[in-house]
């Protein structure tokens, strides 16, 4: 099976069937091994979180967690920061990306590279910089989670910008704008009735990626001493391992579901070639 002759392969000829000349055993061995590496920790976490004394089955890790007020308060804080970050991100991205596409198509790549800048500066370093440079700002900004939202907008840009940008790229923006303007619509009307409705999935994708980033971000929040959900998770982990594992499982599943939705929606829309978020961010970085 592994050594099909080249002629036979060409005979089979289907799209992508075996153009890379890799045998089935190779493919399945690799995919099964790698798959196992990704699935085992999840299964093990689930098992671990239901493990009581003497190997009994128990929900106690979960019930104790849900009974902890801090669980709800930190989750609420993370959700608030996430919603604020998403709102700010959209307020910043919608005008910028549309403007770049309409007026500055030549600079599209440049703006994209600006959005990838946060990948070059580690978030620990950004945090230190925030402390040294914003220490003297009014307390309402620096001393509250507002600063988290402000920074998360930038740190999530590599995911959000690309997603929204490729969504705008996929519609015929110029025609929409020309048609709208020739009918006498101003920019507000254009956005409200012509452009944004066509960008719904792009807006949703950028929002979900940004929100997922905010729910999982640990470095900045912990170093600026805000007890967000991931920071609480680490605190729990130092005391009660099974609760922390249960909490991690919840956190993972709740970030995976929306992320998977984004991936699936976007890969279908673009015929599976182009993805979204990090995927196309990387793709574009590689294509440059």
């Amino acid at each position, binding site marked *: 099976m592994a050594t099909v002759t080249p002629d036979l392969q060409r005979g089979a000829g289907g799209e992508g069937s075996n153009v890379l000349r890799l045998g089935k055993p190779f493919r399945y061995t690799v995919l099964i091994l790698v798959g196992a590496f990704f699935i085992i920790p999840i299964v*093990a976490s689930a098992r671990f979180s239901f493990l009581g004394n003497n190997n009994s089955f128990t929900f106690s890790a979960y019930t104790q967690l849900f009974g902890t007020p801090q669980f709800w308060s930190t989750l609420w804080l993370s959700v608030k920061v996430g919603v604020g970050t998403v709102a700010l991100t959209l307020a910043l991205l919608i005008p910028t990306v549309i403007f770049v596409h309409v007026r500055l198509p030549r600079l599209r790549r440049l703006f994209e590279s600006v959005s990838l800048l946060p990948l070059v500066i580690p978030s620990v370093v950004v945090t230190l910089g925030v402390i040294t440079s914003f220490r003297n700002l009014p307390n309402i900004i620096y001393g509250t989670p507002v600063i988290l939202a402000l920074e998360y907008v930038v740190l999530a840009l590599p995911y959000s910008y690309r997603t929204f940008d490729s969504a705008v790229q996929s519609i015929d923006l110029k025609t929409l704008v020309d048609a709208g303007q020739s009918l006498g619509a101003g920019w507000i009307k254009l956005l409200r009735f012509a452009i944004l409705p066509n960008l719904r999935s792009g807006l949703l994708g950028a929002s979900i990626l940004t929100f997922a980033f905010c729910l999982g971000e640990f470095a900045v929040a912990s170093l600026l001493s805000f007890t967000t959900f991931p920071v609480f998770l680490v605190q729990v982990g130092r005391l009660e391992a099974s609760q922390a594992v249960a909490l991690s499982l919840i956190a993972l599943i709740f970030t995976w579901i929306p992320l998977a939705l984004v991936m699936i929606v976007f890969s279908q829309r673009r015929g599976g070639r182009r993805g979204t978020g990090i995927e196309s961010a990387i793709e574009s970085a590689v294509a440059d």
Partner: protein
Amino acid sequence: MAVTDELRSGSDSVSGGGGDAPADAGRRRRSWRKGRWHTSIGALPFLVYVALFLLVPAISVVATAFKNGNGQFTMANFDEAVHGVYLQSFIASIKLSFASALIAAVVGVLAALAVSATDNRIVRALVTAGSGVFANTGGVPLAFSFIATVGNFGVVTKLLSSAGFDLYAHGFSLYSVLGLTIVYQYFLIPLMILIMIPPIQALRKEWIDASASLGASRFQFWRWVGIPLLTPPMLAAFIVLFTDAFAAYATAEALTSGTIPLVPIQLGSLISGNVLAGQTNLGDALGAGMIVVVLVAALLYAYVQRKASKWLR
């Protein structure tokens, strides 16, 4: 993309011209000037925002690294950052990132090849979507799910020991550099798969057919066509993985509670206030050092990328 954009805007200005030439040129110049003015306004908020919340902090770290506690110029911070424990932590960080990236690059390429060669659409969609999800997974929950798996009391650790093999008696520890290397694979391998699928799919079928009709064996195809074509994108991807691993903080902190001296961890503990007297701006020097490492990686990336983009368009 950029090329088509330019072509499009070029053709626009051509088709826009129709009346008598001088008047048209004048109109175009005026609208161009007006457009330029609008330009700076429209793009400004975004650029200002990024400058304020990313560049200002980054630059202030670098600038502070050259100052002592009284604001005078000094090289003492850097002097300390490249000696003793801090030098060790740079070495440890670079070693860890290099090893993690190398393993992930090899495994990721094999997986990307396997996926690209599969004609099963469901497997493909599953791996692509899964990679997109797992590549974003890093962080705290990841650390705990590995603790549940191969930690001291992990499920797999127990299974193995009941089968007569004690992981921890054989020198393995999850809470070590080796453990971190394994945990990092969880987000590095998917990243590698995501990066490598496009260049692998860009290996043109004609090239494969051509080599086959010229009588190339499978080995010859990979030796003379496949590997030379995939090497530049692999190198570029390796650099991305290295950078990702080098900057990772959450996973290492959650897993080892800061006991392993890595640069981000050291920097984190300096930020959290574990500062000895006379080390006021040492953290900034470490931060500047991290930026230097990442910048060197980014320059290498740009160089490799230029080579890579020659063939794979």
